[in-house]
C-alpha cells in the first residue's frame, strides 16, 4: 500500500489488574493509506472506540506500535501528542462535544486558535467550513439552538478546521435520527471524494458502505478486513 499515513503493529490495550484485567484491544495490525476511508465495525464493547483513542493519542497502548505520518505515537510525550492532535488529527465524537456557551463558528474556530492561528484567519476558516457543511446561516447559533444533525455538522467542521491528515470519527451518527444521519452521510461522502483520510467507528451499515475498507472487530481483535472500493487516484 502506498502513502501509508497510519499504521499499527500488534497494538494492545489492557485495563485493570490481576484477575480483573481486560484486554480491550488485542494485537491489532492494520494500515491506512492517504485519502482512504476506513470503517471499523463490531458489537458494542468490542474495543472500537478504544482503538480510535489509541490512534489519536488520547490513550496510550499497553503494547505495540502506532505510527502516524511516520512518527511513533505510542512513544510521544504529552506535549508532542498535543501537537500531533493539533496539526494532524481531527476528532468527531458521537456526543458532538460542542461547548454549549460558544456559537457554531466559535466552536469551529477553537482548534485553529489553539494551533496559534490569528483570530481573523481562524474565523475565516471556520466560516468557510460552516459554509461547506451547509450551515452558513447558522454560524451565530448556540448548540442548544441547533438540531442534532446540525450539531454533528458543526463538529465535523471543527474537526476539519486545521486541515488534518486524518479525521477520526467515533459513532458520528450514533445520536442522530434518520434524516440527520443522511446529512452526515452526504458530508462524509464529499470528504471521501475530496481525498480526506477518514477512520470511522460505526454501527451504521450505511456509513460503512461509504468506506473504501471495512475492519470488523470482536472481543478486541480484528477478525476481518474487507476491501469495498479502491481509493480514488
Amino acid at each position, binding site marked *: 500500500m502506498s502513502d501509508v499515513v497510519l499504521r499499527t503493529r500488534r497494538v494492545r490495550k489492557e485495563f485493570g489488574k490481576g484477575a480483573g484485567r481486560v484486554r480491550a484491544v488485542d494485537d491489532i495490525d492494520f494500515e491506512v493509506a492517504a485519502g482512504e476511508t476506513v470503517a471499523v465495525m463490531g458489537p458494542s464493547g468490542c474495543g472500537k472506540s478504544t482503538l480510535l483513542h489509541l490512534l489519536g493519542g488520547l490513550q496510550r497502548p499497553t503494547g505495540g506500535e502506532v505510527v502516524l505520518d511516520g512518527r511513533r505515537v505510542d512513544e510521544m510525550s504529552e506535549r508532542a501528542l498535543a501537537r500531533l492532535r*493539533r496539526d494532524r488529527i481531527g*476528532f468527531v465524537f458521537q456526543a458532538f*462535544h460542542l461547548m454549549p*456557551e460558544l456559537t457554531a463558528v466559535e466552536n469551529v474556530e477553537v*482548534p485553529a486558535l*489553539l494551533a496559534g492561528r490569528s483570530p481573523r484567519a*481562524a474565523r475565516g476558516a471556520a466560516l468557510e467550513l460552516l459554509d461547506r457543511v451547509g450551515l452558513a446561516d447558522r454560524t451565530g447559533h*448556540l448548540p442548544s439552538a441547533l438540531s442534532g444533525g446540525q450539531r454533528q455538522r458543526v463538529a465535523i467542521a471543527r474537526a476539519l478546521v486545521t486541515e488534518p491528515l486524518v479525521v477520526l470519527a467515533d459513532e458520528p451518527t450514533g445520536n442522530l435520527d434518520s434524516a440527520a444521519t443522511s446529512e452526515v452521510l452526504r458530508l462524509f461522502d464529499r470528504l471521501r471524494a475530496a481525498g480526506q483520510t477518514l477512520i470511522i467507528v460505526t454501527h451504521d451499515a450505511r456509513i460503512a458502505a461509504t468506506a473504501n475498507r471495512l475492519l470488523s472487530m470482536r472481543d478486541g481483535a480484528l477478525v476481518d478486513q474487507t476491501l469495498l472500493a479502491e481509493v480514488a487516484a
Partner: protein
Amino acid sequence: MGRYLLVLRLAWRDLRRRPVEAILAVLVMAAATTTLTIGLALHGVTDHPYEQTRAATAGPDAVAGFLSEDGTPPKTADVDAVTHLPGVSAHGALMPLAHTTLAMGGRTATVQALGRSPAGDPVDQPRLTSGAWVGAGSVVLERGFADALGARVGDQVTLGGRSFHIGGTAVSAALPAYPSSLCHLLCFAGVAPGPNAFDIGLVWLTPADLATVQERTTPAVVYLLDLRLADPSAAPAFAATHGTLPGRDPGASGPFLLSWQQIRDADAGVTRSAQAALQVGAVLLALLAIAGLTVLAGRRTLEQTRRVGLLKAVGGTPGLIALVLLVEHLALAVLAAAAGLGVGRVLAGRFTAPSAGLLGSPGPASLTGTTVAVVVTAALLVALAATLLPALRAARSATITALEAPARTPRRHGRLIALSASLPVPLLLGLRLIGRRPGRAALAVLSTAVTVTGLVTILTSDAVSGRGTGGLHNLRTERLTQVTTMITVMLLVLAAANTVFLTWATVADARHASALARAFGATPSQVTGGLAAAQVVPAAVGALLGLPAGLIVYRLVTQTSLTMPSLAGLAAVLVGAILAVVVCTAIPAGVGARRPVADVLSADAA
C-alpha cells in the same frame, strides 16, 4: 412532623457522606467566629484592674487641670471656684505638671513630670511598687513607663537636661498608665505636649526639683487638682457640666476636667486597638468564609443535582429541597459558632493582661450572653448568605433537567470570548473559563480583595504604630502586633483554602472543556495555565481593589488622617498575593489538566 424528620435525616446522611467538606466548612466559619469572640471578649477586660488600682491608691473621682502658658499658678479664686463646686467633697493640693524629655541609655521619651509633695496627699496616693517616694534629686517612674523604658530603681536618668536617680516605681489611677492612647491634658487646650502626642510617660518628682528642669518640650504648665466627689458615679456628668471644652470655650485656660471613667477608658486603650483590629478582622474573615462556603455549597449542589431531581420526582417540594441544604449548613454554622466561642475564650486570655501601670489581673475572659448571641447569629448569617442562592437554585431546577443534565449550563460572555481569541492559549482558556462562571470569578475577586484589604490595613497600622515610641517597649503595639499577626495568618490560611476550593470547583466544572481543549491540541501545560489563569486573573483584580480598600478601612476604623505605608510594602502585598494564588492553584490545576481525555469524554457522553 414526618417531613421535618425526613429533612433532618437527609441532611444528616449527606453530612456523613462528605465529612471532609463538612469539616472544612466548620473550620472556615470557625476562623471568623473565633476572631469575633476574642474581639468581643476583650471589651472591658481592663476595668477590673483599674478599679483595683483606684481603690489601692485612693484615686480621685475627677482631675481638674488649669493651663498656664507662662508657668505661673492659677489664681486662687479660680481654684476655689472648682473646689467649692456642688458635689466636691474633698480635694488634693495643686500640682504643677510640665512636659519634658527623659533620656536613659540612649532612649528618649516625652514625659509629663508631675510635682508632688514628698509628704503625700489624701486624694491620689500613688502606690509604690518598688523603692521610695520622691525626694530631692530622686524621681519615681510610673511602673508601666519604667517597664517600657527598662528602668530600675537606682538607675540614672536625664530629665530635661538634669540628672536624677530613680528612687522608685509606683502606680496611680489619677492619670492613664503607660502606654495609653489618651490625648493628654494639654491637648484639651490645643497645645502639643511634645514630639509624641501619645504614649507619654509619667514621672513624679518634688515641685522644687521640677522647677530646676529647664528644658521643656513646651513652656506651658498644667496645674492639676485631684477632686473627690460625693457621687463618684456622677463624675462624667460633673466633668461635662463644669469642665471647659475646647470647642465650646475657645482660648479658655481651664478648668479642664477628667472623670475617673475617662482615665479608666484611656487605660483600656492597651486593648482597644487590638479589639478594633479583631472586629475588623472578624468582618473580613466572615466575608472570606462566605466566599469559601459559597464555593463549597455551589459545588455540593452541583454534585447533588441528580439527587435533587430524584427527590422532586418522588414528591419533594422546592421548599423541602432548599430546607435540606439550609439545615445542613446552619447545623455546621452552629458547630462553628461553638468552636469559635470555645477557642476564642481560651485565646482571649493571651490579650487581656493589663499594662504594668495597673494592679491585679483581669481574670479569664468571660462570655456574656450578648457575645454568644452575636457570634451564633454571625455564624448563621454567614452560612445563610453562602447557602441561600445555591439552595434556591437547586429548589427551582426542573425535575427532568436535574435528572438528565447534572451539570449547570455555562454562561456565555460574547465579548470575553472575542477578546480571548487574540490571546495566548493559556489566557484564552482562562478567560473563557471565567466567562463560563462569572459568579465564581466574582468570589475569587472578593476573596483576594478581602485578604489584601486586611493585609494593607495591617501594614498601615504597623507603619503608624511603629512611630514615635522612641525605642521603648510598647504593650499596646506589642498586643496589636500579636493580634494582627494572628489575623494575618487566619486571612492567609482562609484565602489559600478559598483559592484551592475555587480551583477545584473550576477544575471539576471545566473537566469536559479541558478534555476537549486537549483533544484538539492544547498541551497539558497550556490547560494547566488556563485553569490557573481562571483564578489568577480575578485574583489580580481583587488584589488591585484591595490596596485602596485597605487604606480606606484603616481610615474608617481609626478615624485618623491617612498614613501611607511604604510603596515597597504595598508592592510586596500585591505581588505576594498574586504569587500565592499561583502557588495555591498549581497543584489542582495541574491534576485537572492531566486527567485522561478519553475517560472524561467517554464518561460525559454516557
